């Protein structure tokens, strides 16, 4: 057997994604480039012809499409036929694919599409980390995960099909990670040996139970459903499948940990010193991982800080989040993406405020919304320490401190208003390039 060209070592997030898709034995990858996702499908165009996989009899069809909408449509078509399908996109590409994203859910297709999240555009281009793209698909019915490390990108895509193709689920999964923050940076990544990956990944089926392409057994798809027929029931079924995915994600994570010794919380949320925390900072993506450094520092200074990373955002892990909120009375929620005109301007903070109403014990919890890191602006360690200090001040004095960057009840971390954020020299022109 041919030795793999890459098995372990520093690897870019996008390439980790490409290897994971191959190790999950995908049948079809359809591709269209968009920054910062491009190197995923570029690398896959190499890997589908890589000796390592060909020697093992793995056959992956690679389709170059003319747009992301066509990528979505071809994923749907291939998945109708029972193929294990994968692609990747980002930002505007995801928006252009959006119609087909909804189709994937409506037709209950177990597709995995990874997203190298980037700022959305209108007026000016932005290609850097910002989860506005994937959040815009929040209500489409896809499952959404936020990944925080390079290894987690690999592991999550490998685990992905065990969730999507599970009989109780049959919904697409869109794992998202920060564009450039993870896609183009490199950190140590270890693949699962190919043979072991095949034993872990859910066995393939010739066709799905509910849909197939077979001239002997013709089936009509995409018909008109009248209001008096089952449209509403189908929609409710997709919602039910989302909720049924919660235990499937947990079980998949547990099985992965048992076999390979790595885990990301219970697959839904990843707590860090959250059990005895006086204040808790909830977030997602790499910024939530980075908050753990701030927790370490504050703990050394005698403050009981804790962090909670939401890994699975849809389905929403209500009970798993509330379990930690119940233990504290002051909770900060950090969004990296803006939900214009919503109660807090952050999608996650709005959700968390909503679920806190569910139980008597969490109804008086103070939720403090933070937003930052938009369009790829770094959120620094010092800024995260400041976020925690705001939470501690609220806990001690009963009142959230006034800050120039607190507007409409939300703290907008890292704005160009403070003394340290004033552009120097011609930095404004060069930006952070």
């Amino acid at each position: 057997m041919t030795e793999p060209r890459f098995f372990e070592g520093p690897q870019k997030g996008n390439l980790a994604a490409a290897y994971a898709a191959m190790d999950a034995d995908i049948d079809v990858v359809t591709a269209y480039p968009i920054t910062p996702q491009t190197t995923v499908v570029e690398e896959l165009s190499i890997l589908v012809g890589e000796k390592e996989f060909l020697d093992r009899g793995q056959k992956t069809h690679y389709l170059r499409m003319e747009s992301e909408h066509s990528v979505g449509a071809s994923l749907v078509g291939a998945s109708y036929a029972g193929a294990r399908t994968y692609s990747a996109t980002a930002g505007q590409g995801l928006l252009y694919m959006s119609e087909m994203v909804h189709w994937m859910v409506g037709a209950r297709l177990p597709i995995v599409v990874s997203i190298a999240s980037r700022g959305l555009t209108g007026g000016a281009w932005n290609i850097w980390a910002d989860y506005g793209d994937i959040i815009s698909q929040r209500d489409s019915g896809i499952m959404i995960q936020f990944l925080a490390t390079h290894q987690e990108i690999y592991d999550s895509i490998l685990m992905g099909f065990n969730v999507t193709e599970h009989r109780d689920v049959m919904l697409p999964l869109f794992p998202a990670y920060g564009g450039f923050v993870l896609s183009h940076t490199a950190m140590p990544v270890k693949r699962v040996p190919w043979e072991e990956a095949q034993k872990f990944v859910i066995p393939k089926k010739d066709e799905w139970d509910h849909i197939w392409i077979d001239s002997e057994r013709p089936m009509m798809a995409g018909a008109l459903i009248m209001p008096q027929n089952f449209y509403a029931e189908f929609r409710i079924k997709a919602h039910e499948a989302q909720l049924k995915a919660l235990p499937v994600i947990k079980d998949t994570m547990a099985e992965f940990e048992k076999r390979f010794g790595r885990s990301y919380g219970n697959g839904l949320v990843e707590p860090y010193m959250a059990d005895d925390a006086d204040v808790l900072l909830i977030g997602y993506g790499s910024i939530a991982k980075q908050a753990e450094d701030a927790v370490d520092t504050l703990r050394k200074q005698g403050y009981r800080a804790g962090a909670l990373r939401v890994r699975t955002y849809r389905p929403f892990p209500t009970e798993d989040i509330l379990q930690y909120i119940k233990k504290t009375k002051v909770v900060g929620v950090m969004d990296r993406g803006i939900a214009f005109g919503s109660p807090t301007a952050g999608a996650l903070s709005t959700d968390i405020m909503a679920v806190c109403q569910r139980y008597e014990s969490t109804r008086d919890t103070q939720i403090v919304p933070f937003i930052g890191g938009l369009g790829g602006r770094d959120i620094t360690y010092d800024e995260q320490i400041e976020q925690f200090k705001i939470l501690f001040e609220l806990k001690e004095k009963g009142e959230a401190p006034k800050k120039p960057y607190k507007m409409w009840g939300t703290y907008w971390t890292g704005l160009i208003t403070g003394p340290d954020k004033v552009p120097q020299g011609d930095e404004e022109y060069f930006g952070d390039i």
Partner: protein
Amino acid sequence: MTDERIIEVTMHGRGGQGAITAALLLCEIAYADGYTDVLSIPKIGAERRGAPIKAFTKLSRERKIKNYAAVEDADITIIFDPSLIPLPGVAEAIKHGVVLINTADEVDVSKFPSDCKIYTSPVTNIALELNLTAAGYPILNVPLLGALTKVKFRDETGEHGLDLNLETIEKIAIKKFGQRGHLNYEAAVKAAAQIKEIQ
């Protein structure tokens, strides 16, 4: 043993000089040399050959790296092109640590903090002499990393620092670039031998 501090490196180059690749190669070399967690960060914008660019590397022997933000106060600064020194955010942004500059000429050290150690190595000349070029441009990244093996950096405690081996550079260069790796390594050895401590 005190808590390990993560070693942070900033590379200043011009588009096309290989600073982004250097940041990644430094990760691979350090990982092979026993650093368990490494991170390379390219600061990517609109790609422009010749424009100032930055790349960063963070290295750690034991501690998990969780911070993906750009390096602000680098322990080690590598400058690929001396014409970058007076630009905003280059020499003026250096607060401590050591600096390695690719140049065969005199450097005006007054631009740098007086307690910084400053090294130079004539890497462009070495690459051109060896015909280590791509599309006519000298390849600077592997030779500069060769020079970096002679740069001594320790943190405040003196317990942690940067220790890279030329042998590892040879191994990684051959793995990455095949036959060309040998030439890269030869340039790295010369760059290490011709390093000068100027402050």
